[in-house]
């Protein structure tokens, strides 16, 4: 009863730490895009319409290595595959009508976790949780893209590690839930390294090999 007033606020209290956490990563994303001389509209557009950090950084990586449009879009799609699972799990739990499906467009890893804990959220409660992190992500990216070049070069170089650190953190997070994720990553990385000569498609080769290794390991552990 004492916490009823919190529910009347336009922002869920759990949104604040998520938004604060997004800010430096969004800024680093904008900064990295700026260092690649990508226009600010593209940087902000990715944050606005894709809104998925790992795939946005992956897109920058692919663009920087000279991958074509198709390979870059494929990279975004593949990195975001986990969202199908999150969306599936979230909608199974939320039991909302299908007309509310559009709300999953702003479902991220962190919002998914927060919304999946505790009471089943109503569509309105979900928006109270999700709108602030989304706004901070878009504005932080834009700010990084517009002001990044003003930072000292040593700090800009240091921020260049943020993409790989994000990938490591995501991998470790996945491996804590399921250790076979490490196997998938190791096989995917090794195959991508060995097939570097075929350019951006080495990502596809690594992806397929790693996913196959994961499926084999999972089937063996079930059998």
């Amino acid at each position, binding site marked *: 009863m004492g916490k009823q007033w919190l529910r009347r606020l336009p922002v869920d209290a759990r949104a604040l730490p998520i938004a604060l956490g997004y800010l430096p990563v969004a800024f680093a994303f904008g900064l990295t895009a700026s260092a690649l001389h990508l226009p600010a509209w593209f940087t902000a557009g990715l944050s606005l319409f*894709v809104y998925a950090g790992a795939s946005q950084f992956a897109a920058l990586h692919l663009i920087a290595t000279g991958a074509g449009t198709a390979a870059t879009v494929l990279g*975004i*799609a593949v990195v*975001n595959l986990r969202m199908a699972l999150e*969306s599936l799990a979230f909608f199974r739990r939320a039991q909302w009508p299908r007309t509310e499906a559009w709300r999953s467009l702003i479902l991220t890893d962190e919002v998914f976790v927060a919304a999946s804990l505790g009471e089943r959220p109503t569509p309105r409660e979900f928006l109270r949780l999700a709108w602030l992190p989304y706004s901070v992500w878009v504005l932080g990216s834009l700010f990084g893209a517009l002001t990044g070049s003003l930072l000292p070069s040593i700090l800009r170089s240091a921020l260049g590690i943020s993409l790989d650190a994000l990938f490591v953190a995501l991998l470790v997070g996945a491996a804590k839930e399921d250790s076979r994720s490490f196997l998938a990553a190791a096989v995917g990385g090794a195959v991508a390294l060995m097939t570097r000569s075929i350019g951006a498609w080495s990502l596809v080769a690594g*992806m397929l090999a790693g996913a196959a290794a994961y499926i084999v390991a999972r089937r063996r552990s079930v059998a």
Partner: protein
Amino acid sequence: MRGLGLVLLGGAAATAVWRLLPTALHRRVPPLVEDLLTGMPSAVLGALLIPGLTGVLPGGHVLTVLLALLVAGVIAWRVRGVIGPVVAAVLVVFLGLLFGWP
């Protein structure tokens, strides 16, 4: 510019499909597809991460990069979320560049 516009449109469409598709799939997928969806992101992260390790920083600094990623991994193992690992890795690289670590 046209290529970037297509990347933006394609990326947005692909992401929207993943986010919206499950709500149209009767909320169930075959086990093999579920395994594939579970394993593929980790495979992609490995495929993006490992081949690019030598090119993260101008001038190499491979040991600094490895140390930063090790620190990120340890922190990610101990705490939930991605922000702590990212900030720690940036700090390690900043110190590495400042003091000229290899």
